[in-house]
């Protein structure tokens, strides 16, 4: 579930990056971050599948809920990292303008 949520986040971020008008939102970092994590969790999932075989596709409800919360938390963490970096880099000068006001 964590892998699935991260892959959806990566696809969504990539679509937003593709449709961007300029690079002011620095969406590239978000794409790389989510794709990097997705690839790493894919390997984790493949090893787990190798171990559990068909049982891998029928997880316990409690594990699934925990994995869903983890996936959402991971996406939230990724978004927070991206946002903090965006505010520090401040490509549009919005933060600097607000401070100088």
């Amino acid at each position, binding site marked *: 579930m*964590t892998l699935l949520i*991260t892959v959806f986040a990566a696809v969504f971020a990539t679509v937003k990056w593709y449709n961007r008008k300029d690079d002011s939102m620095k969406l*590239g*970092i978000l794409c*790389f*971050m*989510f*794709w*990097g*994590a997705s*690839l*790493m*969790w*894919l*390997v*984790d999932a*493949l*090893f787990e599948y190798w171990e559990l075989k068909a049982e891998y596709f029928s997880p316990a409800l409690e594990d699934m809920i925990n994995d869903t919360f*983890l996936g959402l*938390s*991971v996406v939230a*963490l*990724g978004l927070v*990292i991206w946002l903090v970096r965006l505010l520090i880099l401040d490509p549009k000068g919005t933060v600097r303008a607000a401070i100088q006001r």
Partner: protein
Amino acid sequence: MACFLVSAAEAVVVTVMEKNAQKKEESQVDLPESTGLGEHVIPLSRKLKWLSNMLWGGVILLAFEHIWHGEVVPWFPFLAAMSDPADAAEMFYEMATVGVCMAMLITVVWFVMCRVVDSIAVRSAAEAEVAHR
């Protein structure tokens, strides 16, 4: 258990390589006689930045997952598995299998991505040249 540490080690190496490549490219730009060759090719430092972003991103998010599962702890030696020799052996085995495969997959994907991007850059440069004539 600590599979992300292999990618973290690779990320450190790639970041150092990226900074070195960036310095080298900046010093080459300063040269008075630029040949103009390969201007359409994306610089190595930029490509290495993609790889380091993927690796660091994955490492940070996987580290969070390990904290979530209690495998990374806020006290020394920071890895829960290190407190028991049997667990530590299992952790090293996981790092050697899962961890190495993670780092390899990201590197392979990055390599393919670079090849595709290079071919797109060369093709668009060729198209621009034809349109210019």
